[in-house]
């Protein structure tokens, strides 16, 4: 268990380093990292499904986007809503949604599961896109960020970039620890068993459906947390937040980082966003504007990852250390 202690120390060090960022870096980079951490939470929530339970959800944006919409819809126009009420509500709605959808989609498996999760997220996309529930295609603003006051005491101010960042960082760490704990628990053992061999789990006496559903709901709620934070950061939600491109993007993050490793997807999220920044600023060269066609490179990159990095970046590191790379996908 020495290596485990070491890993914990390393992580705490990283956490401390990240916590210093707002005191050294300028506003934009603090915001950039805030976004990265938010996407990191999103990616970890999906990793719980894909990497640990073996449930390839292609509609995870639904829970992400819905939470954002909930915040936008329940916060008063020009006054701050309370963080302590809106956050639980938003996550609750996402969880509830995951419960309903999960109860239906978990009846299917394999390709069907992938496609049905996609179909449900598209349904929600059109619900917000085609109706006036929340500004239709234009989307809807969150004019004022929620306030964190507790009986007059103001622990932090989300309007403040540094504060928001630190809060997100804390939540990121919290989610990580929570998921680690969960995966080390009896529950974690069961969903892992389900991923490897669900049929056998059933014959051993596990009501696998219930466990998968629980997993789906938890994952949905955490995706909701990420969506809620994203809505706070930019004060703007629109239907594309639930679109299948976002679902694809986060799936990409999970695999790029290395699914079934939890920290991997978080790394993947950051790598993806940095890569995008880099590719978009490609120079014009030999008459061809690479910057304009940056998606060509992004696409090729994704293809290569799928072919060459089944265990993602983390897998790359692990492969150097002990072969295999721990939690591969079964």
């Amino acid at each position, binding site marked *: 268990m020495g290596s485990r202690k070491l890993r914990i120390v390393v992580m705490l060090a990283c956490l401390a380093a990240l916590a210093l960022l707002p005191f050294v870096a300028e506003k934009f980079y603090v915001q950039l990292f805030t976004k990265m951490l938010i996407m990191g939470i999103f990616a970890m929530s999906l990793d719980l499904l894909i990497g640990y339970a073996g449930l390839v959800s292609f509609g995870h944006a639904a829970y992400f986007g819905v939470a954002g919409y909930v915040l936008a819809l329940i916060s008063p126009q020009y006054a701050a809503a309370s963080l302590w009420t809106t956050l639980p509500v938003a996550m609750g709605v996402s969880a509830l949604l995951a419960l309903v959808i999960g109860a239906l989609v978990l009846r299917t498996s394999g390709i*069907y599961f992938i496609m049905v999760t996609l179909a449900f997220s598209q349904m929600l996309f059109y619900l917000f896109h085609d109706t006036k529930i929340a500004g239709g295609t234009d989307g809807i603003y969150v004019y004022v960020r929620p306030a964190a006051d507790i009986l007059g005491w103001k622990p932090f101010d989300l309007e403040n970039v540094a504060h928001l960042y630190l809060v997100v960082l804390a939540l990121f760490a919290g989610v990580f620890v929570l998921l680690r704990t969960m995966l080390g628990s009896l529950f974690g053992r069961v969903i892992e068993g389900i991923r490897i061999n669900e049929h056998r789990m059933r014959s051993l006496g596990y009501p696998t459906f219930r466990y998968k559903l629980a997993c789906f709901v938890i994952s949905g709620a955490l995706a909701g947390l990420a969506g809620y934070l994203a809505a706070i950061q930019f004060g703007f939600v629109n239907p594309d937040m639930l679109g299948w491109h976002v679902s694809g993007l986060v799936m990409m993050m999970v695999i790029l980082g290395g699914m079934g490793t939890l920290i991997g997807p978080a790394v993947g999220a950051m790598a993806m966003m940095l890569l995008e920044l880099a590719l978009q600023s490609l120079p014009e060269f030999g008459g061809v504007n690479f910057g304009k066609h940056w998606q060509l490179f992004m696409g090729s990159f994704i293809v290569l990852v799928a072919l060459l990095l089944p265990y993602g970046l983390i897998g790359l590191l692990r492969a150097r250390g002990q072969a295999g790379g721990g939690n591969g996908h079964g």
Partner: protein
Amino acid sequence: MSFETFLIQLLNGVQYGLLLFLVASGLTLVFGIMGVINLAHGSFYMIGAYLAWSLSERLGNLWAAIAVGVVLAVLLGMLLEWLLIKKLYARDHLYQVLLTYGLILVFEELRSVIWGDDVHGVQVPSMLAASIPLTETLSYPVVRLWISVVCLVLAVGMYLLIQRTRIGMMIRAGASNREMIQSLGINIQLLYRIVFALGIALAAFAGMISAPVSSVFPGMGNQVLIICFVVVVIGGIGSVKGAMVAAILIGLVDTFGKVLHVELGGVKLLPELAGMTVYLLMAVVLVWRPVGIFGRRL
């Protein structure tokens, strides 16, 4: 709506459904036989349409363009299978989703590099340019009927191919059970390459024959992609028959979803939520039959 209008709408629905079938049939074959999930299928529909346009500009007529285009599509399909898809058979669906998701971006950008981002039209072949009057205001374009006929012919062709020929026998064997197919001593590599190329060709062909009606524009692939997945999943993965039934079903749901007016307790449901109807249909079907209407347990 009047009975007459109703009939025409019925026709519209079926006609749209047949076109969907044409695109989706390739998808369902690749799904069912190779167990490969190909998100880039829509891109091949787009590529087909652009080929039809650029080739007919050069060759002077659509028929030649289609002939050449299909060949190109088959070659492209084989190349991709050999270069990329082949590597993923053993892997989880996840990687297929990922790889083909990447391919969508690649093809969309290549399209922009090669053909630009403009909208283009493809001349309707003169022999199909006419329209048949249905009511005093409405008439039905012959080319649409022609497309429907082509789709039907193709559907029958596929049926015969699968039911009557040796390769069809392999395909059925493959769809029902992978171990069996090896035990039959069939060159599975070759079979897969053929099937994948066939799937691609079908998508591209669909793009080509619909190009004169739909015109050619960026992003046209992603429009059909998702709807085709819905078709395949509702019909049952690997079932051509299912794809046909589902496609018609969706064609009708989509058609009437747009024109019917449904209210529930003052809340307008249709056509306000027309965008949701097909997905709703899919959800309902899968709750009823988790493997689609004609799907086998996987």
